[in-house]
């Protein structure tokens, strides 16, 4: 009986196909198989030996059937693996990639700036591109006869209407809407228009983003801290900024804001013309005339304002050489801007 167990177990573990296993099953484990045949020998034994013999045969049968089931499972697994092996593919062939489009680089940069300010509690405010002279100039502290109002620089539709020359027009409307109530915390993005011939660095249409905060005790230091954060958000954590005194009608004091060059880290390169600094923003403390014209008490509240050109930021950030690319919309240009970085 040990002999049989040894032979069958060896045969089962050697078997590779279902047919081989069936064969073993037929010979040993079927009704007429060798194991059942052992049972027939039992009748020839003396009665006292019968129980022990029967138990031995049953144990053998159990062992062999378990081994058989196990072998069947093993062979089935092997057959599946063989089948899968035959299904091999070249994983280096091109993928079937879903088409993904691109946001326009001006949108990418604009949204990035918006994210920074929205995180600090600013509202995004817009206004009409065809604007009244009043909001574009008068309320921005740019009086009649100021050179900026000349036909040579501004697209007039008639004496009252024009294409806005800066997003300051949105700010003057916002101040009027707030009607003296603080806090005011807004950013104002939008298209603006100036009478410039288009070339590599000028465009008669471009995009501005201005910001305005009015409240109690708002200071130049607050302006600097806010714009430092913006410079870092746009051009990297290691950026620093500097203020240079300047002049704008809308603000007093006014400053130009330089950001340390993100290309050379301030050492001097062709992008920053060797100075280590890049002029990016105009800013300052809102002129008291602007505040009082809009109904604020300029004695009690103060504010800061700043403005930047979105094209300029995008050109610096991505190394774009010609402002006209933004409006030509060549797919080779557009496709480059897959994400914000």
């Amino acid at each position, binding site marked *: 009986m040990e002999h049989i167990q040894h032979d069958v177990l060896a045969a089962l573990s050697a078997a590779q196909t279902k047919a081989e296993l069936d064969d073993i099953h037929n010979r040993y484990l079927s009704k007429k198989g060798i194991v059942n045949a052992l049972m027939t020998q039992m009748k020839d034994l003396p009665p006292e030996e019968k129980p022990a013999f029967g138990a031995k045969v049953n144990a053998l049968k159990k062992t062999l059937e378990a081994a058989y089931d196990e072998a069947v499972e093993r062979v089935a697994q092997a057959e599946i693996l063989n089948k899968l092996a035959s299904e091999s593919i070249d994983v280096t*062939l*091109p993928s*079937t990639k879903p*088409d*993904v*489009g691109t*946001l*326009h680089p001006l*949108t990418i940069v604009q949204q990035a700036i918006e994210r920074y300010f*929205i*995180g*600090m*509690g*600013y*509202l*995004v405010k*817009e206004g*009409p*591109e*065809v604007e009244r002279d009043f909001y574009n100039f008068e309320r921005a502290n740019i009086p009649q006869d100021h050179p900026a109002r*000349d*036909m*040579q620089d501004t*697209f007039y*539709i*008639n004496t009252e*209407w024009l*294409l806005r020359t800066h997003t300051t027009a949105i700010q003057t409307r916002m101040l009027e809407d707030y009607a003296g109530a603080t*806090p005011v*915390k807004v950013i104002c993005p939008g298209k603006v*228009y100036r009478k410039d011939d288009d070339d590599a660095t000028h465009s008669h*249409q471009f995009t501005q983003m201005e910001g305005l*905060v009015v*409240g*109690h005790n708002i*200071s*130049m*230091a*607050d302006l*600097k*801290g*806010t*714009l*430092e954060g913006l410079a870092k958000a746009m051009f990297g954590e290691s950026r620093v900024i*500097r*203020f*240079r*005194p*300047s002049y704008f009608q809308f603000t*007093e*004091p006014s*400053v130009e804001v330089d950001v340390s060059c993100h290309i050379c880290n301030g050492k001097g390169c062709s992008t920053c013309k060797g100075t280590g600094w890049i002029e990016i923003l105009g800013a300052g403390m809102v002129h*008291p005339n602007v505040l009082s014209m809009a109904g604020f008490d300029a004695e009690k509240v103060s504010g800061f304002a700043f403005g930047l050109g979105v094209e300029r930021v995008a050109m610096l950030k991505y190394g774009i050489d010609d402002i006209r690319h*933004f*409006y030509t*919309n*060549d*797919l*080779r240009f*557009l496709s480059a801007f897959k994400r914000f970085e």
Partner: protein
Amino acid sequence: MNVSTKWLSTYVDLSGITPQQLAERLTLAGLEVEGLESIAHGTNLVIGEVVTCEPMPDSDHLSVTTVNTGSEVLSIVCGAPNVAAGQRVIVAQNGSVLPQITIKKTSIKGHESNGMICSLLELGVDPKSLSESQKSGIEVLGTDAPLGGDPLAYLGLDDTILDVKLTPNRSDCNALWSLALEVGALLSRPVYLPKAQSYPEKASSLMVGSETPKCPVFIGKTIGKVTVGPSPLWLKRALNAVGIKSINNVVDISNYVMIETGQPLHFYDASKLAKPEIIVKDHLKGIVKTLDESEIHLHHEDIVITCDGHSIGLAGIMGGDDSKIDESTTSIVIEAAQFSPAQIRHTSRRVNLMTEASLRFQKGLDPMAAAKAVERSTQLLVELAHATELERTVMFGQPDSSPKTVSVTPEHVRTLLGTPVDTETILDIFTRLHFDPVIKGDRIVCTIPSYRLDISVAQDLIEEVGRFVGYGDLQGTLPVMPMTVGGYDARQTMRNRVRSLAVGYGMHEVITYTLVHANKTIQGVNPIPDPDSLISPLSDERQYIRNSLLPSVLESVAYNQAHKQTDFQLFEISSLSNTKTNEERLVLIQAGKQTLSRWQHQERAYDFYSLKGLVEGILEELGFSSQRLSWIPVNDHPFFHPTQSVKLVLDRTELGILGKQHPLIAKAMGMDPVYMAELSLEPLLKAKATKIKYTLINKAPVVVRDLALVVDRSVSASQLEKTIAEAAKGVLLGIEIFDVYTGDRIEAGKQSVALTLRLQGESTLTDAEIAQTLKAVTEALERKHNASLRG
């Protein structure tokens, strides 16, 4: 503005400060220096004397010279035609670096040469300031030139020119005297301006006046017995350094004083005036012949200088040709006046004449400058043109000389700047600026000098403190104020959702120009009537404010197709703005085909249905399900395919048109037809988006039945769907069209439409209920559309 540091240093001590340091200091104080340029360049230069000069035997133009530099005698080969023994010359010694060349010991045809005798051109001096002989030969110095000395210092060419970009509020610094005061204040150094001299004067025969408010002040002075001649070297150099050509001493004085005081002056030849009377007028007609010999046709608003009823000059811009100073002039009339800056700007732009004078008048002048300029020119005319007969100054009007006071509290300075600057520092800055600060209570009261037109409110004073202290040490903080909630409004949110969805669908965003050609204003979808146009556009191409988005986007489409980029999807979302309304629009474009996998041959040409799908997808995202949309065929739009275009209606509001571009229009534009949509987004902001509402999952089994119908081709899918929906109301879960066939195997004019109906009741539908529903459906289809079931 060009500033000569050498000239500036005659008023304020600049010793120990390099031009670079000065430029940096000015820039950080808001007077941005955009460039620095030395008048002449060269290292290792020395004054030498030519001892011997012999022509080189085998050369037709070279000379062999020996030159004494005081410390040694050099043999130098020189190629200049004018070199001669006895001359004092500029020697560039070995090792000298010149703009074009570095001097080394060399040998020319066997003759050793140790240096170069230089022309000013070789030292990089602006050729415009040089005569022909100076350009073609070496510079010959005076016999007083010190041997071994610095030739640039001797010539007054040891000068650096600063290109200062003045902001409009600091036009006072157009006057070198004011700039000197500014520099003195910045550096805390004393400033020495020339003191006015008084001379014996006789009564004036001159009458001056103004008949226009555009000339409130006019000062005149007659000066007799002047001698016109060449200017001294220092004067020539000073003017050359700032880019003004020397003419003669009298004309040069007028320019010199203009640079010093900022006040443009005009000198008339007194003998050429019909009578000693100058009246300023406007509302004149006729022609003025200006100094540059151009003829200016007067407009009524122009300010004109007249004498005896004749126009003799265009005020503030250019004098007349008839009364100009020349070599024979012996007596002159000085004009120093105030003219309306705006009018000078308008006239000068119209006649296209930008002069030093007009630029200065436009920017606004110190009201006291005119008087100062007359005094200073008198002094120089006496000293340099030997004027001896002076008449008294006559003046029309009176410059506003009332002192202006502005005050500020130190606390205001500190809170607005956000920096702890102490009161003493503030007072020191105001003192250095000659603001004469006086403390009254908690305020500092400043008396503002007449030239500081920019100081009128407390914030202006605070700016002075800010720029003097500098913002370098200012520590950034964030505003401390009540919390606010930031974010986008509904319009911006919608716009950004459309953008991200379109990008997810594989579309590229474009931004196009707002200004378009007139013919683009009639080509769009639902163009807004009466488009606005510009009074004075840059070109016809950009004259109109667009009233539809599609024509501009099609320009970008055509551009890309012309550059062999034929398969793409574009979108633009932009506002159409005009004097009456603002309307947000969306344009979608599909061109060519979509390629999923070339090697697996998975390509799909864009068609009407792919565009319709885009629109449905976007509207669904915004909360407007397809059930609320109707697609109404459009067959008469000039720019759309007559049978593949629809008007899209949400509820009852038209959103816009989508479909295939009319092939004939595409052909005319030289492009391949594309699928295009232009939709207004305004109705979406007003319409109510469908709210998301969860209903329990119905666990009753779903019954699926297919129907194959034969109907006339004129019957649309949506009509069939509508009929089915009504007939199977209550149990219909969905309809899917899975086949549409027209062709040989079916009667002409008919189509076969195969659909799957998915039915579901509140509990399991019985066979009878299913049969009853299908019967109702087929009967309704037959009754309404003459549809038969296909066998």
